[in-house]
């Protein structure tokens, strides 16, 4: 049976269709989830896509994390279900406290939209299992508020527990993120958030390359292996 991956659409989500396309290219079924839904339709994994949910009102992700669907996503995550937050989705996961820290204005105040080098630090999450340890990727970023911050003890904990999953390549940190952090996971390693956009790098006919595809293929592989 083909794995079913839910992609949530909030008002203001932009990258939900690309995320769904990436799931399909990787061989899964993409299931549309709506922010007002009370359940997640029995999917095997959830993707919170990029965009500007609720117009970034109050703070990025602050309103979205209170949407009805997020209660279901939080329950799913607590039960060990794989959840990926990309860009705005990462911000939503931090606001929901499913991941530690927060994402603030880029240090140079500029919206950055370009490919960046990203290093795979850990392959023991469902979303990084398709990569080799230390693999260097090129993924697009496009955000104005992607500077990852957390207090020093939280950062030390993330490092010592091996929860920094993706790190910007040396000299390529586009936003001033602490310790070049591009993506992290929770203690249980089933929830991952990152600022770069794997779903925009899955089609060889486009200019962004295909380095993002293994994030979705790895997920589908890990879902199949636990069945």
């Amino acid at each position, binding site marked *: 049976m083909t794995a079913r991956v839910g992609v949530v659409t909030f008002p203001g989500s932009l990258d939900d269709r690309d995320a769904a396309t990436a799931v399909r290219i990787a061989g899964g079924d993409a299931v549309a989830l709506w922010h007002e839904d009370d359940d997640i339709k029995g999917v095997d994994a959830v993707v919170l896509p990029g965009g500007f949910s609720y117009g970034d009102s109050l703070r990025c992700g602050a309103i979205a994390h209170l949407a009805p669907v997020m209660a279901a996503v939080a329950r799913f995550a607590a039960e060990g279900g794989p959840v990926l937050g990309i860009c705005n989705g990462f911000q939503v996961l931090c606001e929901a406290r499913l991941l530690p820290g*927060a994402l*603030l204005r*880029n*240090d140079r*105040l500029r919206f950055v939209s370009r490919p960046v080098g990203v290093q795979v630090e850990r392959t023991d999450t469902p979303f990084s299992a398709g990569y080799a340890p230390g693999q260097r990727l090129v993924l697009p970023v496009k955000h104005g508020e992607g500077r990852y*911050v957390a207090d020093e003890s939280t950062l030390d904990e993330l490092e010592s527990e091996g929860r920094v999953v993706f790190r910007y390549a040396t000299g390529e940190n586009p936003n*001033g993120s602490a310790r070049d952090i591009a993506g992290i996971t929770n203690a249980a390693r089933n929830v991952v958030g990152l600022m770069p956009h794997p779903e925009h790098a899955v089609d060889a006919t486009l200019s962004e390359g295909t380095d993002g595809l293994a994030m979705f293929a790895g997920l589908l592989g890990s879902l199949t292996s636990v069945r």
Partner: protein
Amino acid sequence: MPRVAIDVLLKRELLDPQGRATERALPGLGYDGVSDVRIGKHLELDVDAVGEALDALVEAMCAGFLTNPVVETYRWRVIADDERADAPATR
């Protein structure tokens, strides 16, 4: 109904790039002797509660939704009509 004003800033140890950019622009405009510029948010709301109930409600809203305690700190107070930030200028 009490009007509540809430001031929110990024925690002191966090870089505030808006504040930094503004601070750097000031000398060029001839405004010297200004430092430690921090830019945050000012919220005002009417709250239908008084006394301890008001305190509890505002604290809960601030800590749970209006601010993000991971990166922000806040102060709040009850203000009079002429203390509103949008009160007409008096001359």
